[in-house]
Structures are given as C-alpha cells and as structure tokens.
C-alpha cells in the first residue's frame, strides 16, 4: 500500500515500512566526485582495509576539471591511487562529464534501486525511478565500509502537472514555478512523486530537470514514474538489471498539488534564493554581464538545441560573456556533430569542457563584484558563482540565450514565433 519511496525502501530493507520509521537499507550504487578525497580520509580512519564492493562504487571527476589548482590536483591524484588500490571498477576521469549526467548515460540511474551520492543533486536519478539522494563524505565512508545506510522513511507529496506547455516554456520553468509555490523547504525530508500528462510527455532529459531541481525545495528523493521511455533509455544504455517499482494505488500522500502546464509562463529565480521566482516579464530588461548555459540541470542536448535555435544567425551583445558547458562529452560530441557548437561560436560564445566549474564558482567564469549573470544552473545563493556582491538569475536555456543577445534579461518567446 506504499508510495514509491516506501516500496523501494521496503525492498531494500527486506521488510514493510511506514513513514517516520528508521530503516537500514543496502546500497546499490555509491557515487562520488572529487570529494572522494575527503571520503578516502574518513574511510582510512574507520580502519577497514577493503571497500565493501568495488563494483558498486562509482567515481566521476567533474567539479574542477581539468584541475584548476595544486590542491585539486593533489586530491585527484589521491583518488586515482585509491581507485587502483581498491580495484574500483567504475572510475571516470576528467574526460567524461558531470556526474548526474554520466550516471544516466552509463546506465547507473535505474528504476527501483537505492543510489546515494556525495552531491545534493543526486536526486536527478529519481527521473528514472531510483531512490536517489545526496549524502555527506563521512556517511559515504560508512557506505564504502559497510554497504549500508539508515534512512528515515520519508513522507511523500504528489505533484500533478496536466496540460500542454506553451512555446518557450520548458521543464525548467515548470519546476521553478513549483518551487516558487512550495518554497525552499516545501519538500524538506520528503519524497516527491511527479505525475500527470505533462510529465509523461516529457523527454528523459526534461524529467531529469524536475528531479534535479526538486533538491532546491529540500526533497530527499524526487521520482518520475518509469515508463516505456525509461525502458528504451535503459536498453540503449545496456543498463544492468533493474526493476520497475511503482507506487500502489492506495498509497497515502501527505499533500497533493495540481498545476496546469498551459498556464505556466517563462520563469526566473531571482537573487539570492531559488524560491524567489518571478515571471520573466517582471525582470525583463535587467542588464547582465554573463550568460551561462550548462550544468547538471540544463546542459543536455535538448537544452543546447533550444539555445541554438535562438542564437542561430545572431550575435551575443557586445560586452556580454556567453559561456556554454555541455553536461558531458557525449553531449559535447552530439552537439558538435549537429553543428550546434558552430552556431555558438559564430554568435560569440565560449564553449568550455563539460564540468561543474562555473555553477559553484569554482573556476571557468567567476563573477566580479557588482556583476549580474543569468544562468541555467540550479543555485543563485549569494556568492554562489563568485563575488558575494554579484547577482545570479536562474532561467531556461532559451531565456538565457535570448538574454545573451539583448544584454539584458529577455523573454525567449519573441524569438520562437
């Protein structure tokens, strides 16, 4: 009689479960990026010689690639050595992409599994029906040592989205609209299930946007129900065995929200919180210095295609920096073959290698004081992308592309008629 979260945790813990209860679950996939260096430190301190299962640990370099400092280089070296020492099978160096995208591309994001990652946006894999959530480095060291983790069984909220999206409105606008309603802690400690025709009609890439950004309302996990599209993806990716686990019809939800997709317009999350959501008309004309298209939120092929539609044959406004970071090398290559990268270069954009750099202000496009950016990323916290005196607006790839052309926040719909 369970929700999706309850049903997966029941499988993983081998017993029936109910919200609020603490359960102990086996982990199917344990993902880390450069913060594996910190995980290794804690793992050593626990004093176990070998990791619990060297085929279930995945390490993907993405946060600062290629290394931007000696400290990062030392950390990456330490991790590479550990990978060799422990025979960790799934290691992706600087040439693969952003962890959440790579997990999907390499078939690790699968329905019905328990996936933990030392990154908050691990919720992204919920788009495939995985119980996927972020944890810290110490907790991951515990998982490496034991293969197990405790969870408080979350309560679940259901979000129904019905209707057709208007032109120029995307999954990013839908989820920003939802976060604006539920606020930054609206789903804290909770599981989210997305349902409705709008979601069913979305591509896998768009569903990943929903699960990814659900983190910004505090969600522990954020599911889209696996379906035929999911199955097709998994088969193409030769994903390891999976099980379609779904919620029961009688499942109990603590809250249900209904949204009409046809009423949603392009949205912008304004500084300095993701729940400070406004319609683009309210901030149209705000001057910008930088525009960024990329990240685990919106750096996939469909995002680059939408941006290219608008940028084709146009130029980025003088004085504005347009930076484009495909989410993975697979995306990069596809974009190259389709000629999208040519369009971006022609427009005056800078294409960076796949990675997280600009999103968290680590490198590759840090903002100076007083500067304003519009970005397809997931956080606009004070100082997130650089100076604490800079300002970040979050929007869809189309809105960012339109803004780059005008040098100020612009409505993408006028370019799509």
């Amino acid at each position, binding site marked *: 009689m369970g929700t999706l979260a309850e049903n997966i945790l029941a499988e993983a813990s081998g017993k029936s479960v109910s919200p609020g209860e603490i359960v102990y679950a086996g982990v199917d996939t344990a993902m880390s990026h450069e913060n594996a260096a910190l995980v290794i430190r804690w793992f050593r301190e626990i004093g176990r010689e070998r990791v619990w299962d060297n085929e279930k640990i995945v390490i993907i370099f993405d946060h600062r690639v290629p290394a931007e400092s000696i400290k990062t280089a030392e950390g990456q070296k330490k991790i590479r050595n550990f990978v060799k020492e422990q025979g960790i099978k799934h290691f992706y160096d600087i040439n693969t992409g952003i962890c959440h995208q790579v997990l999907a591309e390499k078939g690790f994001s699968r329905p019905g599994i328990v996936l933990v990652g030392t990154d908050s946006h691990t919720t992204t894999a919920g788009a495939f029906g995985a119980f996927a959530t972020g944890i810290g480095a110490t907790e991951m060291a515990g998982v490496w040592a034991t293969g197990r983790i405790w969870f408080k069984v979350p309560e679940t909220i259901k979000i129904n989205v019905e209707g057709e999206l208007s032109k120029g409105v995307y999954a990013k606008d839908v989820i920003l609209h939802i976060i604006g309603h539920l606020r930054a802690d609206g789903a804290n400690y909770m599981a989210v299930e997305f349902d409705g025709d709008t979601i069913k009609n979305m591509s896998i890439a768009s569903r990943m946007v929903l699960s990814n950004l659900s983190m910004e309302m505090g969600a522990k996990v954020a599911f889209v129900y696996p379906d035929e599209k999911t199955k097709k993806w998994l088969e193409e990716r030769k994903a390891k065995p999976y099980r379609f686990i779904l919620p029961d019809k009688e499942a109990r939800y603590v809250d249900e929200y209904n949204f009409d997709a046809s009423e949603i317009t392009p949205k912008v999350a304004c500084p300095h919180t993701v729940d400070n959501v406004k319609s683009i008309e309210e901030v149209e004309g705000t001057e910008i210095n930088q525009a960024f298209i990329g990240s685990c939120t919106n750096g996939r092929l469909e995002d680059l295609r939408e941006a290219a539609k608008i940028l084709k044959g146009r130029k980025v406004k003088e004085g504005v920096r347009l930076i484009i970071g495909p989410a993975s090398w697979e995306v990069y290559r596809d974009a190259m073959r389709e000629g999208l990268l040519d369009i971006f270069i022609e427009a005056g954009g800078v294409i960076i290698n796949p990675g997280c750099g600009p999103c968290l*202000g680590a490198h590759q496009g840090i903002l100076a004081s007083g500067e304003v950016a519009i970005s397809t990323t997931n956080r606009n916290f004070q100082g997130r992308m650089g100076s604490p005196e800079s300002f970040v607006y979050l929007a869809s790839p189309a809105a960012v592309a339109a803004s780059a052309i005008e040098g100020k926040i612009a409505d993408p719909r006028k370019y799509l008629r």
Partner: protein
Amino acid sequence: MGKVWKFGDDVNTDVIYPGYALKVTNPDEMAKYAFAEVYPEFSKEVKEGDIIVAGKNFGCGSSREQAALCLKYVGISCVIAKSFARIFYRNAINIGLPVIELKETDEINEGDELEVDLNEGILRNVTQGKEYKIKPYPEIIRRIIDAGGLINYLKEGKNV
C-alpha cells in the same frame, strides 16, 4: 556554556562554506572559511563553545560536509534551529556536531548564554533564565552522537 550567534531562515551551505574552498583539507584552514565571504568577521570573533541559533531550513543547498566541519573546527559546539535541511542535519550528526531542532528559536537573542545538556535533554538560556526540552533523537542517531560521530561508531566495530 556558549554564547549565541543568531541567524535567520534558509542559511545555505554556500554562505556557510564557499565553493572555491572545497579543495581545502586542513582543519585549521577550513575553520577560517566559515561564513568567510558573507560574514568575514565570524571566524575571527567566534569563541570555542559558541552556539549558532537559526530559523528554519538551516544548511540548505549542497551536500558539502565542509559546511558542518568548518563550524566544528572553528569552535561551534552546537547548532540550534527551527528546522534543518536534511543533508546538513545528517552531516552534522555524522561528524559529531550536535544539532537540535527547537521551535522557539525566536525567543533566543544574539549574545545570550546557553547551556546544552544532551543527556538530560535540556537546553537552558542562562541569560533569560528559561528552559526548553530537547526532543529525543531516534535511537540510531543517539548511538552515533554518543560515539562522537559515525567514524568512531564504525571504529567500535558497530554496523548500521
């Protein structure tokens, strides 16, 4: 006993610990980055044993454990908030930094002296002469806290 540093709602991990400093591993250096960009005076003025008191959703955002570690390393003995973002909450427990959920944090003022007794489950505001009951933790959390964090807990040969 510790002096209160008061914060508002939705204090996020990027404000607590800047992204560019994630590569830092040395504890003393990590301590210096606590609130470095937004409240540069914090790490200089905070005293061993001081306590952070905040509104709702403390620690929202990234899974970066450094956000909890830097507070511990800079001398913070406990964080009290109306609610915590879930990853921060787990991180704090796992690294041995006590976190307490308390609805009445609005009643506590900047600079108040607090006394936290986790064994008795009592929080005393010495300055105001008030007492609050701390909600008991679930057993697994209690055991991890008692061991001084998850690493010690696992070192003792226990399992989750």
